[in-house]
């Protein structure tokens, strides 16, 4: 074994240790949430809580699924989050490209508009927004929420994608043009592959925001059939710090799974896009 390899090996041990510690740090609350979801009400009232439950209590899961309509809420949240993510990406990718590549005046005006749109607090816009959604007949509809989330997500998605586009050297596009590629071919074969990590990051951000959003849903959704997951979970909490901890942990655990799955599916793209460097060899 060469000295360099030995050195690298010694360097790897603390690196792996640090990674393991970080994973435990991130994963522990998730583990605690899962084990809490398996505890009975009486066990949850005890002073000395243990990580592992003393007995497995599945009733928390039965209650949230059968009596609190969690599956229906999860279905609504999934439809809303997926549709919002797809629509946001469809609008934000070309718009982000345009803002990044077009004239400085247009780009400045567009980014200014994006920033201004982020200035207003939710409490200021909620009633006019409520009226507008009601006027177009989308109150108490998951499509109304998709529309609102799309509007809420677009400025930040545009901002993110504008940055990603700007980081792609213009020389690459010019080189493509010199080689006779059409504008569409340049976008499809040169820009888009390099933009994949940006699109994935933006999509993840949009998905998670739509999945977790509470306040707009609280105000715009009226009937139990259209309820989203955060609304259903909020109903496990009472006033003055009262909480139905078992069912809440069970609901929160189930609510985390889709986010993890989406991240698991997309994270390869995130990494592969980053590795797809412009200059090879």
């Amino acid at each position, binding site marked *: 074994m060469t000295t360099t390899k030995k050195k690298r090996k010694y360097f790897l041990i603390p690196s792996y240790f640090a990674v393991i510690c970080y994973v435990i740090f991130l994963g522990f609350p998730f583990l605690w949430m899962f084990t809490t979801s398996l505890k009975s009400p009486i066990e949850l009232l005890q*002073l000395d809580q243990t990580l592992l439950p003393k007995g497995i209590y599945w009733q928390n899961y039965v209650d949230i699924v059968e009596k609190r309509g969690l599956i229906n809420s999860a279905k609504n949240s999934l439809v809303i989050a997926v549709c919002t993510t797809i629509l946001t990406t469809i609008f934000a990718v070309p718009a982000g490209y345009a803002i990044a590549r077009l004239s400085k005046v247009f780009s400045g005006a567009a980014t200014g508009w994006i920033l201004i749109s982020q200035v207003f607090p939710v409490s200021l816009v909620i009633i006019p927004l409520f009226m507008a959604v009601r006027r177009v007949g989308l109150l108490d509809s998951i499509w109304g929420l998709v529309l609102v989330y799309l509007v809420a997500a677009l400025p930040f998605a545009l901002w993110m994608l504008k940055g990603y586009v700007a980081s792609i050297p213009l020389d690459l596009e010019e080189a493509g043009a010199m080689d006779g590629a059409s504008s569409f071919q340049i976008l499809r074969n040169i820009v888009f592959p390099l933009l994949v990590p940006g699109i994935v990051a933006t999509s993840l951000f949009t998905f998670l925001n739509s999945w977790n959003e509470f306040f707009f849903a*609280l105000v715009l959704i009226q009937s139990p059939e259209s309820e989203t997951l955060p609304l259903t979970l909020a109903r*496990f909490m009472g006033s003055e710090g009262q909480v*139905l901890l078992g069912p809440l942990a069970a609901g929160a655990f189930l609510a985390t799974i889709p986010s993890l799955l989406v991240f698991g599916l997309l994270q390869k793209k995130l990494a592969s896009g980053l590795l797809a460097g412009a200059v090879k060899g």
Partner: protein
Amino acid sequence: MKKAKLLAIFAATAMVASVAVSVPARAAGIEMTYLTPAYLKGTVASTERIVADWNKANPLAQVKIVYGDVNNMQDKLTTSFAGNVAPDIFQHEAASILSFAQQGYLAPLSTEMRTLKSTIPSGLWNVGSYKAKLYGVPTMTQTYTVFANVDAFKKAGVPVPTGTGTFTWDDYRALAKKFTTDGKYGVAWGLRSPAAMTMIMGMNFNAQFFRGLTTSSGASLAVKSAELEVPSRISDMIYVDKSIDPASLTMSGAGPVPGFLAGKYAMIFSASYIAADLDIATKAAGFNWTSLPLLKGKTNIQGANPQTLSVSAQSKNKKQAAAFIRFMMQDANLGELALGEGLIPSTTGSLKAAQSQKKGSAGWQQLLDDGSALGLAPFTLVGNYQKWKDTVLQPAMQQFLQGKISITELKKRQLDGWKSIR
């Protein structure tokens, strides 16, 4: 071609006819929405049972339950009223419905509920009223009281206080000191959000806070010795006697319950709703608890901020909505709902029903017996009370109880805060 046209006309006629036939059937019945913040397992089951009974008995006036989040009811209702899509019936706390009544969003219920008036203590009835009209029917309310570990009292040879109007703040302080031994604190008191509790308990010392409620210039805030008595006594127990566990100061009202069940404290001070948790512990592990008589200063009266049922002025079915409220207020229904929440039902009949259901439990009997000591809390009639409580009193009280500001500063902040809000 002609055949196709005829077929189209026939199909269109059939469609119109089918709609025409279905309209009278749909128009014959109505559906009302009932927004409730019920979330505890027992209360949800009771609500669904009551609504199912109503729907069975009233096939033409169906009620649909809509569950709300108790911590966001105000936002939900504000936007619903503004958007003209308010629920027909809703449950909310008395202090928060006042602003809706002032803005004309609520239907007056005095006439519809006149049969209930004699069964509800006048203090509670008035809390749900505005300008002599009832807008929120008081259903159930909580009291703040001391819960005791009976076995700890027995072990220490200390008799458990009983009766009504017999247990004073001085007795409580002495008991807390007595049980503060061997590194244990006598009492745990979840004081993370102390504002509402200190105002409600302040009535023990005739604290009014707001005066001139009916004057044209509006209510004015006065903070005198009576208004500062409760904060001062709590502070003495924390810092002079050291009989309150300091760890509990940042807990919610229900936070100290696990420590209480584990025998860490002989007493905890909390709202009556924790009785539901204590019942679970009694059933599972035979935990022996009771509630002590309501604390008495000059009186044992506490301010009431009950849960109320209201009808939206936007409802097209106000009469049926009021009838549904009367159905909910039936003794057995209200008694069951209140016990599920650990609250005191408002009508004399439902109180009796609850008492008979909890006959074997000394703690529950004490809680229910003390239900009559609830009076009108003047602050529930003040429009800006909620804002002042949340933005001024709450942080000031938290800082005072953490020993960061003096009682003089507490008073100053309350008065200055009210001036800026008005």
